[in-house]
C-alpha cells in the first residue's frame, strides 16, 4: 500500500497554496474517523489534506465551531495518562499482565516521543518501524504510524502499542471517561473503538495483518476513582467500516483537478500585527470555500469545525433534517422538491413515483386529521412543471 502513494508533483504545492500562510494542522485518529464517517465530503477531504486550520477558518467566516475543549477535561485526561505512564508505565504493565497474561519478565518500556532529541514525524516513524520489525520491547510509548488517506500520508500517534510474546501487537488506548459498574457511555466507547481501529489499520499496514490483534485494550478510570481498569475492545466491525470508507475517499489529486489553480484559504495575516489579525475579506473567503462541494449532515455538528458554515449553506436540503428523515422521504434530497411533489405542483419522474405516492398519502392523511385542505405550497418556478 505504501508504494501506491506516489505523490503527483505539484500536489504538495497546490495544497500548500490552499492552506496559505497558516501552520499546517496534521491528521489524527479523530479527524480520520470523522472524515471516514462522511467520505463524500470533498470540502473536508481537501481541507484536511491541506492541513487547513478549520477552526480558525470557520471563525473568520463568521461561523465559529460549536465545540471547544474545557481545560478541566483536558487536565483530567492528561493527569490520568501521566499517572498510567509514570515509572515506566507501571500501572499499564499491571493491567496488561492481568488482561493479556503477559509474563512477568516482560516489562520493557520504550519511549518513542523523540529520536535523539529530534521530534520530527518522519524520523519517529522510521524509528517506530525499525523497532517494531524486531520487537525487543513490551510497550512502545508514543509510536508514530502512517496511513494513506485520500492517497496521501497521514501520521498518527496511538497512546501505546503493547506486544505479547509469541503473539500479536495490541493497540492500547487511554481515555479518561469512567467505566462505572462495568458500563461506560456507549457513544464514547464507540468513538474510542473507531480511533483504535484507525491505529490497528495503520499498524497492520506497517507490520502485516496477522501481526496485529483485532482486539484492542481500552484503559479508563474505574467507577468514581482514578484507578485504571482495562477492557478488551473488538474493533473488527469499525475496522471493516473504516476500510470501506477510506477506500471510497476520492484521491486528493482527482479532487484538486476540479478546482481553480489559484484557490486559497489564506487568511492574509498582518505581518506587523502581533495579535495575528486576519485581513482576508470574509466574502471572498466564503466564495473560495464554496468552490469545493460539501456534504453536510447533522453528524458533522459534533465532528467538523466548519459545520455551522456548511449547515447555513444547506438550506433546502433534506439531509439537514437528519438521516432518518432523508430515508423516510424516500431519499428525496431537496425540501422544495418534497413539498412540490407532495402538493402536486411538481410532476415526479418515474424513479420518484413511489416516494411521491407516499407523500401524497401523507398530505391526504394530514388534511383528514387536521380537518382542512392541505395548505397551499409555494411554487418553485425553476422546477415548476418539470419532472424532478
Amino acid at each position, binding site marked *: 500500500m505504501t508504494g501506491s502513494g506516489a505523490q503527483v508533483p505539484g500536489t504538495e504545492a497546490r495544497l500548500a497554496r490552499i492552506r496559505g500562510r497558516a501552520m499546517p494542522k496534521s491528521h489524527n485518529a479523530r479527524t480520520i474517523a470523522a472524515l471516514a464517517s462522511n467520505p463524500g465530503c470533498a470540502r473536508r477531504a481537501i481541507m484536511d489534506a491541506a492541513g487547513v486550520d478549520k477552526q480558525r477558518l470557520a471563525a473568520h467566516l463568521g461561523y465559529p465551531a460549536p465545540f471547544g475543549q474545557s481545560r478541566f477535561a483536558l487536565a483530567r*485526561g492528561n493527569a490520568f495518562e501521566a499517572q498510567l505512564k509514570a515509572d515506566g508505565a507501571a500501572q499499564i504493565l499491571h493491567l496488561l499482565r492481568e488482561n493479556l497474561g503477559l509474563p512477568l519478565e516482560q516489562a520493557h518500556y520504550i519511549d518513542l516521543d523523540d529520536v535523539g532529541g529530534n521530534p520530527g514525524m518522519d524520523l519517529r516513524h522510521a524509528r517506530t518501524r525499525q523497532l517494531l520489525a524486531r520487537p525487543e520491547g513490551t510497550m512502545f510509548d508514543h509510536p508514530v504510524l502512517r496511513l494513506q488517506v485520500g492517497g496521501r500520508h497521514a501520521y498518527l500517534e496511538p497512546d501505546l502499542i503493547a506486544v505479547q510474546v509469541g503473539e500479536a501487537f495490541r493497540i492500547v488506548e487511554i481515555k479518561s471517561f469512567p467505566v462505572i459498574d462495568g458500563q461506560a457511555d456507549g457513544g464514547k466507547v464507540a468513538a474510542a473503538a473507531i480511533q483504535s481501529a484507525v491505529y490497528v489499520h495503520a499498524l497492520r499496514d506497517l507490520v502485516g495483518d496477522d501481526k496485529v490483534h483485532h482486539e484492542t485494550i481500552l484503559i479508563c478510570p474505574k467507577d468514581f476513582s482514578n484507578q485504571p481498569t482495562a477492557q478488551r475492545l473488538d474493533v473488527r466491525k469499525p475496522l471493516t467500516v473504516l476500510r470501506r470508507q477510506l477506500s471510497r475517499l476520492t484521491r486528493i489529486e482527482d479532487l484538486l483537478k476540479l478546482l481553480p489553480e489559484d484557490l486559497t484559504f489564506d487568511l492574509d495575516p498582518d505581518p506587523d500585527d502581533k495579535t495575528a489579525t486576519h485581513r482576508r475579506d470574509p466574502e471572498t473567503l466564503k466564495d473560495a470555500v464554496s468552490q469545493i462541494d460539501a456534504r453536510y449532515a447533522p453528524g458533522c455538528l459534533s465532528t467538523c469545525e466548519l459545520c455551522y458554515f456548511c449547515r447555513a449553506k444547506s438550506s433546502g436540503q433534506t439531509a439537514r433534517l437528519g438521516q432518518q428523515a432523508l430515508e423516510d422521504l424516500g431519499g428525496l434530497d431537496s425540501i422544495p422538491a418534497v413539498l412540490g411533489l407532495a402538493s402536486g405542483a411538481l410532476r415526479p419522474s418515474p424513479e420518484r413515483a413511489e416516494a411521491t405516492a407516499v407523500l401524497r398519502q401523507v398530505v391526504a392523511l394530514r388534511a383528514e386529521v387536521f380537518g382542512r385542505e392541505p395548505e397551499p405550497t409555494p411554487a418553485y418556478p425553476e422546477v415548476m412543471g418539470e419532472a424532478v
Partner: protein
Amino acid sequence: MSALTAYARTLAAERQIAQPVASVRHVHVSDRPLVFVPLQLAGEANAPLAAIVGSDRGTPTVLTVAEPRDRNQRFAFIADLADVILPYIEGYPLGTREAKNGNLVPVAGDAPQLIVPGPAAVAFTRLLGRSARFRRTDGPYAVPATVPLVGRWLSFYSERPEVPGSSLTLVVTDALASHWATGQSPEEDLNLASILGWIAPPPGMTGAEAALLAEDPVRCPPAGPATDPTFDNEVLEGLIKAVRAARLTGGGSGRIRHALTEELRTQLEPTWERMWQAVDLLRALRPGDHVASRWERDCSAFARYADWARATGLPQPKHDGAVQASRRLWDLEEDQRRFAAERAYDDPLVMAEHRMSGEAFAGTVAAAEPTRVDASGRRRVLRPRITVETGDRVVVEPGTVLTSPARTAQEARVISVEAGERTLVTLELQKGMGQSLTPPPGSVPELGERVCYATFNLGYQRRPEFPPREETPWTHGGPPAPYVPPDENAQEAWS
C-alpha cells in the same frame, strides 16, 4: 420516525416554525412537578458542579460546589439536594388497598414528578444516584442519612424514562420532540433552547431564527449537564482557583464563593425559565384519553418502590438478578406494546402512521347488516356484518381480528377484502353488543359512519409465570445469593 414526521419536518423547515406531530398530549404533567437542572464539571466522573431545583417556579434553589473534585464537597452538595427533594417526595403519602387475593398493596393517589432537560441529565442523575445510594452513615467517610436515601430515589427516577409511557420522569426535549417536528435534525432537537425556539419563538422572530440564537452559549447557556467550555476556561477556572487560594490564605473566601455562585446562577437561570416554559406548552395541550390511566400505573410503580425501600432499607443492587431482569424485560415489552396502541387510539395523527404502514385502515361504512344472526352453531348468536369502504392500503388477511378505537370492547373479524380503486373490507362483529339478538343502538357502526380498524388492541396481557429467584435455572447462573449490599460498595475508592 415515519414519512409523516419527516414530512412535518420539511414543512417546519419551509414555514420556519415547528409543526405538530401529535393532536393530543401523550404525557402526564403534574400540577406541582420538581424541576431539576444539574451541571457537572467537565472531564470528571459525575462531579456535580451546580444545580437549580424546585417545585415552585418563583422560588428555585440554586446549589453550587466550590471544588467539585473534593469528595466531601460532592456529598455536601448531595445532602443539600436531599433537603429539597426528600420533603417534596414526602408530600405524596402512601396508602394501602386490599388486592383480590387479600394482600395489602401499597398505593398512591398522586406521585412526585421529576422534570429534567434532556437525556444527558437523566444519565447524570443516574450516576449521581449510583454514587450516593451505597454510602454509609457510619465508619470512614460517613455521610448524613439523607444522602443514601436521596441516592435511592434518584436511582429510581432515572430508571423510569426507560419505561414506555411512564411520565414519572419527564425528559423535556424528548417530550417536546414527540409532540412537535422542528425544521432541524433530532440531534439539534436535544438542545432545549433550540427546540423551544422552533416551537415558541419570541415575538417578531421565526422559529428558525430563534433556534439559531439558541446556539449562542453566551445568550443561551447550555441546559447541561455539560457546561459551555468557554465558560469553563474564561470564568469558572479562575473562580475555582480563587476560592482555593482564598481558603489557603484564610481570607475573603465568602466573597469569592458568592461570586462563583452568582456566575453559576447565570448559567442555570435561563434554563430554569425554559423548563417552565416547556411545562406550560405541554400543559396547554389537551391530554389523550389514556394519559390518566398511564399516570395511575406510574403512581402504583412509585408506591411499590417506596414500599419496598421502606420495608428493606436497602439500596437498589448494581445489577438485576436473572429472574428480575427477565421479568423487567417482559414488562418493558408489554408497556411498549400498550403505549403504542394507546397513543394510536388516542390520537388520529398517530393512528395515521399505522394506516400508512397497513396496520390500520379508516373509511366509511358502505353496507351494514346490524341484526345478522349466525344460526349455524348450537345456539343462535348475533353476528352483525359491516362493509367498510376505504382508500387506505389494506394488508390484513381474512380471519384477522381487528379492533376499533370507537368500540374497544368489540372484535371485528375480517371476512373478505375486495381490492379496487377503493378497497371494500367486510367485517363480522362480536362482543360489546349486550346479550340479546338485537344490538343496542350505537353498538354496531351505522351506514355512512366514519370508522377505523386496527390490527392491535389495548388488551392487557398477563405476565407469564417467572420462577422465584431461589429457583433461578442453572442456565441463568442458578439461584443468586441473597442480596446484601457488600461493604466494598460503601467503601469504594474516590479520586
